């Protein structure tokens, strides 16, 4: 991509990250206890959450504002999980060899010019 587009993209990412840090810090100080009872009185683990809070800060704000409640607990859907894993590995079983074939084809199509020696061979 052209450099100006790269700069704009990076500025957007930096803006998102700074907003995330600000929301994350505020959440850790004022919102975490309200959202998660297990966090009350626990402080040592809070810095570990900052990267995730900065990444997911829109969702964090949404939950903090009480606009979305977590879904009620339900039994784990083991069969659905197994199907997802089967789909993932079935896809990889096709994609990974395809990547290998593409790489081999690219490599075979590259002219192998021998390196030109500019001086005497090292001992």
């Amino acid at each position, binding site marked *: *991509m*052209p*450099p100006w*587009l*790269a*700069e704009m*993209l*990076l500025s957007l990412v930096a803006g998102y990250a700074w907003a995330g840090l600000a929301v994350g810090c505020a959440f850790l100080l004022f919102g975490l206890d309200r*959202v*998660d009872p*297990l*966090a*009350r*009185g*626990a402080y*040592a*683990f809070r810095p*570990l*959450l900052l*990267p*995730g809070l900065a*990444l*997911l800060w829109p969702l964090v704000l949404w*939950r903090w504002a009480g606009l979305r409640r*977590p*879904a009620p*607990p*339900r*039994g*784990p*859907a*083991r*069969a659905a*999980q197994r199907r*997802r*894993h*089967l789909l*993932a*590995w079935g*896809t*990889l*079983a096709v*994609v*990974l060899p395809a*990547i*290998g074939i*593409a*790489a081999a084809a*690219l*490599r075979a*199509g*590259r002219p192998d010019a021998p*390196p030109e020696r500019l001086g005497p*061979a*090292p001992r």
Partner: protein
Amino acid sequence: MSHRHLPVGWTAAKRAYDLVLLAGVVGYILAFLHLGPLLQDPGRALDGQSLAIKAYGSCAFLLLTAALAIGPLARLDRRFLPLLYNRRHLGVVTFLVALSHAAEVLGWHFAFSPTPPLVAMLSSEPPPGAAPGLPFVPLGVAALLILFALAATSHDFWLAFLTPPTWKALHMAVYPAYALVVAHVALGALQAATTPVLALMLLGSAGSLLALHIAAALHDRHAVPAVERGWIAVGRADAVPEGRALVVHPPEGDPVAVFRHEGRLSAVSHLCAHQNGPLGEGRIVDGCITCPWHGYQYRPEDGCSPPPFTERVATYNLRLDGPMLLLDPRPNPLGTRVEPLAVPA
């Protein structure tokens, strides 16, 4: 289980796991950096920073492969289960090593110019077709971002905050991350490799993972228990050992663990509410079913964790037909108490 969140729930096993992991990573990187120059063709010697790039990159790839191999290995052989319990530590270390690789790349291939390194990285790839090969740096960047998202949400807080189904769906992104890493290496470093070592490592790792998952899928196929008028024949009631469980796999739905406690039988979901650990492989401790993975506990009669904890698993109904134990495979609503079935030992 804990009353409150902790940074890490340290145990002796976790400390040992992390020590071995860190020693392995440091040992691999030091060996690569010191032995690499000795094994290279003197005519094609790499500088120190290029060696560091390859050391961190190959280490991160091998760690990611190991993280993905642990699941099927644990299903094939229970002795690998301890590796599964602390896999999140392996995941976080994998991300940190991959980040080190990225930092070395930025500091070498995209430095020494007025253009900021990140701008240079994003704007340096030629359009497809304009130069030999395909863009491979964006593939690595995408994989790193996924690994960051997984590492950043690995704490138990996120499991509760996102809810387990959403958290698990997010962490399924490790599979496209693996494909992106393979493509990054295959379309990048492999194109200029002068020995077959890298190709063998790539082929061996990916091939081993696929083979392990196929083997685990075949291993997990279970005999379908007989069903009569909706009830499933579990087996002889006296076959359930005291303090342990028999696991039943109904034709549809989740597996069920039938525990015996003080001579009475109770049936609960085989899957722990925490991270779907195998409850049926646990034991009864202090009157509670205890998950072998992280120690989460549930009362056998109602599937509820003892106060102040709030986790719950489904209970199931049992009945006797002579000496045979029958199970109703339809789970009760969470928190439903089912009177334990008294049977002779």
